[in-house]
C-alpha cells in the first residue's frame, strides 16, 4: 500500500489534473490471432480457462485494481458467447467496480480496425488504457499513470505510455522466437525505435536491427533493450486514436502502429514513452507456450493476489495447501493417489487409486481413473480419463473422453468434446478437434482417435505463413514449444477463414522480395499518399507524378510500386463499396480513371513471359484475401483490367497456372469466382484469332 500511495501523490496537483476525468479502458477481447486454434473454434479466446478461471477475469481484475471506471470491451469472434458471459458476470452487477461497462461488437479484422472504429464512435473522453483481453497483471497502474500525466502536462505530444516488464534474457514467459526490441532514450523514457526481430535467424542472415543514424546522432544516451516483456498495457491519450485513423493500413498495435508512428516522428511530432516495471507481474497469454508459463506463474503465486485461492469467480472455493496445491471443496481423492506440487483441482473432480498428479490443472467434475499419470497437463472441465492413461504436457478441453491405456504425449491438444478410444497413442504435438472451421462437426478419423473415437486431426491452414514462434521450435525442448503448437500466423482473426491475413503479413510471407526497411517505408508512404489522392479524386497524371517521385526517392522496385498501387486501389474500392456502390461499377470507375497509373508499372507487354502482369494479379489476389467480398472484387478487377487492355490473356493464363496463386487455402478461395472468367478467356482465345480482343471486350461489357 505504502509505495502505491507515494506514487500517487508524487505529481503536484497542477492545472492539468484539476479536471476530473473518468479513467477509461478499452479491452480488446480478440487479438485477431490464431494461436489458440483449435480451441478458439468453439470459444472466444478470452474465455479460455487459465488455472480454471477465464482469461478475461484476470484482465478485468487488473483494471479494477487500477481504479478504472469505464470499460469498453470489444468482442471479436464468438462475441455472442462473450457477451452472454459478461452479462452474467459480476462486472455487470451493481457492485461492479466499473461505473460503466460497454460491450461493443464489431466486425473488425484487426486491432487497427477496432481502434479506428473506436475513434469513429467518440466514446473516449480523456486518457485511457488499452489492454488486450488476455493480460494478467497485479501492477498498480498509478505510477505509470502519474508519469504519463506529468509528462503530458509538459508536452502535449507525449501521447502514449507503454508498460513493459523487465525480464532476463531467458524467461519462460517471453516469446522464444520473435523478440521485440525497444530503443529507448532513458533520460526521457522515450521510445525511439521499435522493431521485432527473429531470435533464431538461419545461418545466412543474422538478425539485424536497423536504427536510423539520426537517432544515434541526436541522443547522447540510448538503451537498446531486448529483455522486456511487452504486456500490451498502453496508457493512451485520445490523439492515439486519431493517429490510428490517419493510417488506414495499420493493423497491429506494435508492428505497425508503434513502428509507423515512431518512423513518422518528423511528420507528426508525437512521442511515445515507456514505463518499465521491475517489480509486480505483468504478462500476456499470447500463445500456448505463454499459457503454460503463465499457468505456472499463477500456481507459484507470482501473480499474487490473482491466485486460485483468491476465488475470483463467485462460487469458487479454492484453498491453498502446502506446496502450491489448490483444491476446491468437494474433491474426491482416492486414498492411494498422489497429488504433487503445483496442482489445482476443481470441485466434483474425483481421482482414482494410485493415480499421480503433478504440475497440473484439473477443472471441475473430471473423472480421473486408476493408475493415471498426469504431469504438466491442463485439463478443463468434465473430462473423463480412463485407467492407466498417461498424459504429459497436454491441454485437454471440456468434455473430452480419454479411453483406457492411452498415452497423450507432450504438446498434444484435444479440443472440445473429442473422444479417444482405448489404447490409442496421441502423438506429440497432435491437435485433435471435432469442430470444423465453419462451425460444423468434422468427420471422425479413426486413425487419429481410434475405433469409436470422435474427432479428427486439425491441420492449420497457413502453416507456411507463420512468422512467429514456430521458428524457434527446434531449438527448445520444452513442452509447448513444438512448432505446430505455437503456430501462429501474422494476424488472423479467430473469427474464421473469412477474415484473414493482413497485407503486411502477406508481405512477410513473400520474403523472396527484398523486404527491406526502405521497402516498408515506401510501401507505407506510397499507399497512404495514393489512397489520399484517390479519395480526393486527384487527376491521374498528378498521381502518377507523385508516385514516381516517391519511387525515385525510395529507390523502390516495380514490384513494390505495384503492391502500393494495389493496396491503395483496393482500399479505395472497398470504401466505395461501403458507400453503397456495387463492386463492378466501383472497380470500373477506379481503374478507368487511373488507368495510366497502372499501365506505367507494367513493362512486359512485348515479352513472352508476362512477369509484371502476373505479379500485379498476384498482388491483387493477396491483397483481396482479407477484404470483404474479396473474391467478387477480384473477378471484376480481372474483367476490368482486361477490358482496359492492361493485362493480356496470356498473363491471366500464366497467373492462373502460377503455383503462387494457389498456394494456400485462402488464395484459392479468393480466386474461385474468377475461375469462370479465366475459363471463358481461354475458350474465347481458342475460338477467335488472337488480335481481335476488341469484340470480346464488347461482348463482355454486355455480360455485365
Amino acid at each position, binding site marked *: *500500500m*505504502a*509505495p*502505491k*500511495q*507515494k506514487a*500517487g*501523490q508524487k*505529481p503536484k*496537483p497542477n492545472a492539468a*489534473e*484539476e*479536471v*476530473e*476525468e473518468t*479513467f477509461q479502458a478499452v479491452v480488446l477481447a480478440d487479438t485477431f490471432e490464431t494461436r489458440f486454434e483449435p480451441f478458439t473454434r468453439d470459444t472466444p479466446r478470452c474465455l479460455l480457462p487459465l488455472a480454471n478461471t477465464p482469461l478475461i477475469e484476470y484482465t478485468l*481484475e487488473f483494471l479494477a*485494481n*487500477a*481504479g*478504472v471506471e469505464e470499460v469498453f470491451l470489444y468482442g471479436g469472434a464468438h462475441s455472442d458467447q462473450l457477451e452472454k458471459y459478461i452479462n452474467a458476470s459480476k462486472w455487470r*452487477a*451493481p*457492485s461492479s*467496480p466499473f461505473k460503466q461497462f460497454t460491450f461493443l461488437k464489431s466486425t473488425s479484422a484487426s486491432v487497427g480496425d477496432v481502434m479506428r472504429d473506436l475513434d469513429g464512435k467518440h466514446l473516449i473522453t480523456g486518457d485511457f488504457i488499452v489492454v488486450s483481453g488476455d493480460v494478467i497483471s*497485479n501492477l*498498480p497502474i*498509478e505510477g505509470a*499513470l502519474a508519469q504519463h*500525466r506529468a509528462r503530458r502536462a509538459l508536452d502535449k505530444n507525449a501521447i502514449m505510455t507503454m508498460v513493459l*516488464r*523487465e*525480464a*532476463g*534474457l*531467458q524467461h*519462460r514467459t*517471453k516469446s522464444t522466437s520473435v523478440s521485440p526490441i525497444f530503443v529507448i532514450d532513458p533520460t526521457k523514457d522515450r521510445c525511439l525505435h521499435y522493431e521485432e526481430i527473429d531470435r533464431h535467424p538461419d545461418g545466412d542472415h543474422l538478425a539485424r536491427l536497423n536504427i536510423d543514424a539520426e537517432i544515434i546522432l541526436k541522443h547522447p544516451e540510448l538503451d537498446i533493450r531486448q*529483455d522486456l516483456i511487452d504486456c500490451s498495457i498502453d496508457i493512451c491519450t485520445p490523439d492515439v486514436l486519431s493517429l490510428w485513423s490517419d493510417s488506414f493500413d495499420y493493423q497491429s498495435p506494435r508492428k505497425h502502429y508503434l513502428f509507423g508512428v515512431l518512423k513518422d516522428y518528423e511528420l507528426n511530432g508525437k512521442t511515445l514513452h515507456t514505463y518499465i516495471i*521491475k*517489480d*509486480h*507481474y505483468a504478462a500476456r497469454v499470447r500463445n500456448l507456450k505463454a499459457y503454460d508459463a503463465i499457468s*505456472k*506463474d499463477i500456481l*507459484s*503465486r*507470482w501473480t*499474487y*493476489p490473482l491466485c486460485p485461492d483468491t*476465488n*475470483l469467480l463467485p462460487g469458487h*472455493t479454492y*484453498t*491453498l*495447501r*502446502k506446496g*502450491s496445491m489448490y483444491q476446491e471443496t468437494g474433491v474426491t481423492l482416492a486414498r492411494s493417489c498422489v497429488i504433487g*506440487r*503445483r496442482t489445482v483441482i476443481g470441485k466434483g473432480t474425483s481421482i482414482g487409486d494410485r493415480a499421480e498428479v503433478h504440475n497440473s490443472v484439473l477443472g471441475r467434475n473430471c473423472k480421473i481413473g486408476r493408475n493415471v499419470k498426469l504431469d504438466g497437463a491442463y485439463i478443463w472441465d468434465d473430462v473423463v480419463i480412463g485407467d492407466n492413461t498417461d498424459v504429459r504436457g497436454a491441454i485437454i478441453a471440456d468434455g473430452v473422453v480419454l479411453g483406457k491405456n492411452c498415452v497423450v504425449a507432450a504438446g498434444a491438444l484435444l479440443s472440445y468434446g473429442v473422444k479417444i478410444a482405448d489404447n490409442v497413442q496421441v502423438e506429440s504435438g497432435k491437435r485433435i478437434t471435432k469442430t470444423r472451421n465453419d462451425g460444423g462437426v468434422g468427420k471422425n478419423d479413426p486413425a487419429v482417435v481410434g475405433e469409436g473415437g470422435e474427432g479428427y486431426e486439425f491441420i492449420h491452414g497457413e502453416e507456411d505463413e507463420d512468422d512467429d514462434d514456430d521458428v524457434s521450435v527446434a531449438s527448445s525442448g520444452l513442452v509447448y514449444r513444438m512448432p505446430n503448437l505455437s503456430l501462429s500466423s501474422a494476424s488472423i482473426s479467430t473469427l474464421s477463414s473469412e477474415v484473414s491475413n493482413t497485407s503486411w503479413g502477406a508481405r512477410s510471407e513473400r520474403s523472396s522480395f527484398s523486404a527491406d526497411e526502405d521497402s516498408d517505408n515506401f510501401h507505407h508512404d506510397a499507399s497512404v499518399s495514393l489512397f489520399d489522392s484517390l479519395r480526393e479524386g486527384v487527376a491521374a497524371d498528378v498521381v502518377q507524378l507523385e508516385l514516381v517521385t516517391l519511387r525515385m526517392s525510395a529507390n523502390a522496385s516495380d514490384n513494390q510500386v505495384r503492391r502500393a498501387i494495389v493496396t491503395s486501389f483496393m482500399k479505395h474500392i472497398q470504401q466505395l463499396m461501403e458507400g453503397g456502390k456495387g463492386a463492378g461499377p466501383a472497380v470500373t470507375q477506379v481503374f478507368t480513371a487511373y488507368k495510366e497509373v497502372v499501365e506505367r508499372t507494367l513493362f512486359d507487354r512485348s515479352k513472352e513471359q508476362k512477369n509484371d502482369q502476373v505479379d500485379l494479379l498476384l498482388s491483387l489476389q493477396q491483397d483481396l484475401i482479407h477484404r470483404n467480398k474479396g473474391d467478387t472484387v477480384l473477378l471484376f478487377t480481372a474483367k476490368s483490367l482486361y477490358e482496359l487492355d492492361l493485362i493480356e490473356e496470356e498473363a491471366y493464363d500464366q497467373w492462373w497456372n502460377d503455383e503462387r496463386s494457389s498456394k494456400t487455402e485462402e488464395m484459392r478461395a479468393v480466386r474461385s469466382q474468377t475461375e469462370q472468367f479465366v475459363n471463358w478467356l481461354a475458350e474465347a482465345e481458342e475460338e477467335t484469332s488472337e488480335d481481335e480482343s476488341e469484340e470480346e471486350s464488347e461482348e463482355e461489357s454486355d455480360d455485365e
Partner: protein
Amino acid sequence: MPSSLALTPGLGSFLKCLKTNPIDTSIETLISLLKRRQIRHSRSCATATAYLLRSVISACRTTDSAKLIERVQSVGRRLMAAQPREMVVGNIVRRVLGLIRDEAEDDREAEFALSDIGSESQPQTPRAFDDPALPLDRDSLSFRSEDRTTRPPLTSMFSLLSHPEPEHSLPSTPGSSSPSGRLPGHSPSKDVRAEVLEGIGEIIDELGQVDDQIAAYALDHIHSNEIILTHTSSTTVQKFLLKAATKRKFTVIHAESYPNNHEATHATVSGSASDDDNLGLEAFQKPLIEHGITVILIPDSAVFAIMSRVNKVILGTHSVLANGGLVAAAGTRVIARAAKVHQTPVVVVSGVYKLSPVYPFDFDSLIEYGDPSKVLSYEEGDLVDLVDVQNPIYDYVPAELVDLYITNIGGHAPSYLYRIVSDHYRKEDISF
C-alpha cells in the same frame, strides 16, 4: 485525497461508497476489495467490516433480533469466505452478533418484567416462559452492555460459570424468542436496532483508540536504559514505544522484516513514513529518533546474535488466537524462538479486536503466501523455471513462546486469553 488521480480503491474509497451505494453493492464491493487484497492489515479490515455492518443493520428495516442475527450472519459468512486469513473480519462480525443477542435478551427481559405485571390480563405471555434462559441472563447482560474495555474481566467469571447452559440454548430457539408474544401496544421503549448501532459505534471508536489505550501501559513495561527489540512497522508497537519515550530513555533494535515489510519499516525508523494506513491515523507521527531514542536497524538474520543483549522483545501481530498463539508477520517466530533460547521476555501488543475465538487446528491454513518476486526477482528467468519460491507473509507463533499480551484492557498471560475470548464473544457465535 486527490480524486482526479485514479487511485487504487481501498478503505477510503470503500467508506465513501458505503455512504452512497445501496447496501448489497457495498457488501459485494467489500468482498472484492478483500479478495484483491486492496483492504488488508487487521485494522483496515476491522474498520471496513464494522462500518459495513453498521450500514447493514441500519438498512435492515426490522426490529426482530432473530432476523437481524440471520442477516448479519449471512453477510459475515460471505465476508469471511472472501479472505479467511483476515480473522479480524470474523471477530467484528461475532462481536456485532453478540451485541444483537445482548440487546435482544435485554429487551426480552424488559418485556418479561412487563409481562410480569400484566400477565393476568395477557394470555399470550406465558410463551415467554418457555425459554428458561431469560431470568438467568441478567448478569451477563448488564456486564455486556457496559463498557467492557474498562471493566475488569474478573467480575464476569461468575456470570460465566453460573449459567453456561442457557446461553447455549439460545440459538435453538430463535423463533420462539422473537418478540412474538409481545403486546402490540406495549412495544419496548428502546429500539434494538438503535442500541446495536450504538454498540457498533462503540466498536468503531474502540478501533480508533485502541493504540492509545495500549500505549497507556507502556510505562509499566518499558524501563530506563532497556534494550528493546521489535519487528515490522506496526503502528501499535510504534505508539507504545513513543509513549514510553516521552518519559524514559532506552534503545530500540528494529529488525527490518525483509522482504514483505522492510520498506515500511525503514520508513518508520527514519521517520519518512507517510501514512501507510488509508485512514491517515498516524500521519503526524514523529519517529522515535526525534525523541532521542537510539534506534538500530538490523537485518532479520542478525536477530539471534543480538538477542543476548536484548532486555525485552515487543512484537506487533496480525491476529491472536484463542489458544494464546498468534499469527504475525513472517520472521516473528524466529524472533520469538531466539528470545526463548535467551530467556528474553516476549511481549505482544495487540488490540482486543485482533483476538479471535477460533482455535487453530490447521496452522498452515492461517498463513497467507504472498508474491515470491519479493524473494527472488522475476527477471531471473532460469531460476524461476526451476525453483519453487515461497514467500509466506505470516508466521504462526505458538503460545509457549509468548510471555505477555498487552491489549487495550490490560496485560494478560497467553493462557488467560480464553477468558477474554469468552468475555467478548458469545459461544454460539464462535462457529456460525
